[in-house]
């Protein structure tokens, strides 16, 4: 066809107009014949969405209930990747694990989310802080719920951490090879308490103020570093240069303390705790998953190390 449209041997010169006309006709023809076919194909394709490119780009494996897919479901998911594909059959027993580690982590996430939202409304200044809390309580939609959830989740988290530690001790899960992870856990416990403690001051009310005053007054007595502690005076400690001053940014709980408390609460400690948490989880995997429930050992089977 293109040949015929050119300056053919016949010498018959086909006008430009003619050629354009023919071309357009052809285009219309193709629209008529191709589009229905393509539409049909498209609809056919939609019948099985798991085969679409979008789907397969997200989900890398099939979901037929095969052992392989079960494993892949965990392995190929960034969030579930914390877990191994398969675990000890009894490790799912709640009576053994108490689920406290998971609950702690879950509460940490809840706290992060509610905390971030609270940060939208809160200014860590002496003038604003208390008003902001009142504002949250009275004006912000769901503000009261938000604050309540943040506070109670924090308390719940402290309890969960304690119970987690309690369980880990009772099942002897700190024993070789998990000694180091136990230590990380102890640090996480400390940071959990510190997180909660630094948050206590933020509403800038009497409760927080005096709790923090009592709490930090103890720092005054740090041996050597507090002005009231043993040897403090000998080392030149005064209320204006001791460790309490460093913690509060002043000799009394005031604007600086509020700001410090805020920054530790929202940035400092969460970052450190998150890093430690990552290490903690990673070590759980590396140390061979959770310790149990393991088969009981008999005293007679213990191999005494050689001296």
């Amino acid at each position: 066809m293109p040949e015929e449209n050119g300056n053919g041997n016949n010498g018959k010169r086909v006008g430009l107009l003619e050629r354009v006309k023919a071309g357009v006709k052809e285009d219309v023809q193709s629209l008529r014949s191709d589009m229905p076919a393509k539409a049909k194909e498209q609809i056919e394709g939609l019948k099985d969405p798991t085969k679409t490119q979008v789907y397969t780009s997200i989900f890398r494996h099939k979901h037929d209930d095969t052992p392989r897919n079960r494993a892949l479901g965990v392995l190929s998911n960034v969030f579930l990747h914390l877990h191994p594909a398969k675990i000890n059959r009894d490790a799912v027993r709640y009576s053994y694990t108490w689920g406290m580690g998971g609950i702690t982590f879950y509460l940490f996430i809840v706290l992060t989310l509610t905390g971030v939202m609270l940060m939208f409304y809160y200014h860590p200044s002496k003038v604003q802080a208390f008003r902001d809390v009142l504002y949250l309580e009275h004006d912000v939609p769901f503000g009261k719920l938000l604050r309540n959830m943040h506070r109670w989740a924090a308390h719940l988290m402290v309890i969960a951490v304690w119970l987690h530690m309690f369980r880990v001790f009772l099942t002897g899960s700190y024993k070789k090879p998990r000694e180091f992870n136990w230590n990380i856990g102890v640090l996480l416990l400390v940071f959990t308490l510190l997180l909660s403690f630094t948050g206590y001051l933020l509403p800038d009310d009497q409760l927080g103020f005096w709790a923090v005053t009592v709490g930090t007054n103890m720092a005054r007595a740090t041996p050597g570093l507090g002005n009231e502690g043993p040897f403090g005076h000998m080392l030149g400690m005064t209320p204006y240069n001791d460790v309490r001053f460093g913690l509060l940014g002043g000799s009394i709980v005031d604007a600086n303390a509020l700001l410090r408390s805020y920054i530790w609460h929202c940035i400092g400690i969460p970052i450190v705790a998150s890093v430690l948490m990552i290490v903690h989880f990673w070590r759980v995997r590396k140390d061979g998953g959770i310790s149990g429930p393991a088969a009981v050992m008999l005293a007679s089977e213990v191999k005494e190390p050689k001296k």
Partner: protein
Amino acid sequence: MSPVPEKDPIVSKSYAAHYVIAMLILMVTLFWALWDESFGQRPWKTFQHVWKDRYSAFLNSARSKSSQSEKGVEQNSQYQQLEQAYKDASETVRPRRDELQKQITDLSAKILAVQNVFTDRRAYVNALTYELETENSASGKKSKQQDIDEYKKKKATVEFPDGHRQQYNFAELEETYNSLKDQRTKLSAELGDVLKPVTEASNKMSTFVSDHMVDLTPTQIDGLKKKTEEWDPKIVQINVAEANIVDRCESCHMNAREPLQITAAVMNPKGEKRPDDYAHAFTSHPEPELLQTHDPDKFGCSPCHQGNGRATTSVEKAHGNYEHWLWPLFPKQNAEAGCQSCHAADMHVAVGDVGQHISNGKFLFRQRGCMGCHRYEGYDKEPEDLTSIAQQLKLFEQQKIDNAKISADLMKQADAASSNDEANRLNQQAVALRVANSKIDGRVQQLDFQTHSLMQDMKKIGPNLKDVRLKLNRDWIPIWLKKPSDFRPTTKMPNFRLSDHQIQTISAYLWQSGFTDALPKQKPGNVEHGKLLFETRGCLACHSIGEGDQLQGGTFAANLTRVGEKANYDYLVRWIHNARERTRPYCPYEKKDIGAEDYAKKGLPYQFDLEHSQCPNDGHELQVQNMTVMPSLRLTPEDAQDIATYLIGQKKQEPSAYAQASFMEDPELKEEGKKWIRHYGCAGCHEISGFEDEGRIGTELTYEGSKPIERLDFALFTENSQRGGKGSEPITDPEDWARLPEGPAKKPWYDHKGFFEHKLAEPNVYDQGKVKSETEVLRMPNLHLSKLEIQDLTTFLLGSQESSLPPSYQYKPGDARRDIQEGWWVVEKYNCMGCHQLTPEQSTILMGMKRYQDAQEQLPPKLLTEGARVDPEWLRRFLSNPSLSTTDTNRNGVRPYLQVRMPTFSFSDNELRKLVRFFQALSQQPMPYIPEQVPVLSTKENDMARSLFSSTAAPCLKCHATGDPQHDKIATAPNFLLARERLKPDWAERWILDPQAISPGTAMPSGLFKRENNHWVFSGPTPPSFQGYDKDHSKLLVDYIFQLTPEEQRRVAASMGRSQASFQPRNQQKQAVRQTETASTDGSR
């Protein structure tokens, strides 16, 4: 162990049921959270729904009532006239109006047609012009300009609404457009003019309706109804950023600002007997006038009422009635406490009914001597001011010495300077310093002046106890101290619950430290005359006499029923004659009482008074008066003796019947007494030897209301008061029980109100159950307050808070209102209201007395418009000497015919100024006052005025005093000769036109003049000379009165057949005028 199952439970167990249940519960909690957020936390929504129903129902009934009364108004003939006028007017203008309206409609259509084309073309021209302006090359500009010109020349077709077309170029188009628009403007203006009479008539109708309707008109109510019915539940809030006020009170109190007066009863649902909580919440503000001056949009609600304005989650939260809110809603009975947060500087904050409690609380705080023990910002400032002045003086002295030294130095340097320039410069500096010293001298003099004033202003609530030996029956003192209210039930002296031993020691100290100077012996007087004087001179405006039902008189000062049992006659005479007369002056610098011996040492006469108030020893200002507010009534010594004789006879038992109290001479007891006097702070209210500089023993109360509740010591009743219920009332004494404003506690009373009320009802209540030593027990005495007084004081204390509002909210006016503010402190200090009515709602003690029921003209004058009435300079002179004379002082200067006497208060210059300014400001008079010039009357006018003044129809001289003693006996109004100096002419004219409007109930009748041909014409028969006089008769009369001379007055009186007016009164009058003049020069120290 249970048997092992076939299938692996871990793998085979289904959690579907768990999931379903957990999911369901989770959903429920989520919905619960949602519900809580939108309803649980928003109870005001329910309020608004209920409000909508009830308020609509109320408006419906109000609507029918209103339309009924509107109908009533519309049946009024006046209204019908107006309506007729309206109809006539609209009828007259109708043809022209219709025509104009049609023309305007047509024109508008035409304008639209032109406008469409014109704006399109103008836009194109504008775009081209922009290109021209931004074109760089000259040639380009030229060609663009051509384009524009060409375009403008092109014709465009406009199709008018009537169908015809016309072509215009751009300029024509623009012109057509503008001229059409002009035309329309003109027509509209004309339409407005044409319609003017119609709109005016309709306005008149609606004004008439609203003027004659007591409540709202049906149209207004319809507006409210519509608003109510269309209401969507939403938060209603007042937000004042500058004061950090966010008040959402009106989200529930929906009717707070409604224009109708809405009570709980009308918002009650039908069939309910008692208004429920909703009904109470939906009342309108009970004092809408208050909201006019305190616009809620600026002030919010919480600055006055407190509570948590932001909170909307529950009634308790919103009202701030929960544990951790520091500013709970003021209780209803103490609502006026809120006034104090801005009006702390006011002594008197009453407007109509509002503010009586807080004002009375403030008054009581001073009057009952609370400030003797408790500092409170603004109260009893004089001692503090004196201290600060003394310090300033010291500084100035030092500065002067320094300046003199430096100046001498500089001059020395100048003498030795190397160049003339240098010498001149140094000399100038030296001179400048010397000038500075003279300025300091000026300041020092002012401060000395201030000191003089302050010493004069300084008062004590209780009597001077340095005079006990001269004044009192020795044996009476211990009986009195035991329980003052037993002797005198209405006394201000509180009960300190002293032990017998304490009483002995205290009275011993007082007795032994008292003056022993000799008093002049006084002759006995006439009891009958004394009684008459006591009852008529005005003593009863402050003092009372009689007990129980027989009690008459005021509560400001002591009840004198048993004064004969305690007082010494000679002292009493001196006291009545002039209470301010001191036995010995006191020198605060030396801290000693100065006696004749000190004066003798310097060879000075033993004379001390306000003019001779310098210490003979060191030249410091002396306290030369008794620190009492009791004034001098300018009585003759004989009159004073008569009154004293009458009073000394007032007793229930003989003074000698008191048990001998010889222990009071025991010097050992005296020493201990000193300790107890200091312990109980007696010197807060009394002058006592050796305690002149004693400080206050109580806590400062300026911010008592915002003291943390933990700091208020409920002692053993902390728990009880928190729990309330049976047995939580600690007060057991029935007398004190009866003082509690709301009776014995039932509900928890662990709050400021509860603390104050209990403390005031029984000041030692918090000692109950405690084991304490004599010096540890609570010292606050029982003031025998009534329920109402406790309520008022509690209100005052509750309001005494550190204000969280910005300073601009404090009521500290800089203008005339400040004079009013300051004046009240003085007015209430001296109990001016005992005799004078200052505001229409206030009544005086004397007004209520039987004696004056039938003789109201004998009452002291009302001062409702005093500032407008009198010349301020005259007022100052009058206040400093109300007799207006230096010799003839046993009388009233203005109203000699009154039995009751305007006393001499010996006001300091300071207080005189405050009072004068106060009266001027109270009547909205400008300060300073520049007297209006009264035109000099022509002889003819003078004759006319005289003939009117002396005609029998004009009864002026019947009542007004003339100076003729015969006539003045029956006179009931002041002498006209005083008018010129005393009155303001404009006021005088207003006065004679309608005195009842200025001083309701005055003896001066209204209706003396009537309005005729736009002039005030005398309403009686006028003398013939008035024929054809076309000015105000009232003005003529006032001018005449202001020019009246004693001679003229005598002449007139004589012509009226009072030839008795001899020469004597004439002389007296002359004298009086001269005296006034001398008084004025004396007064302006």
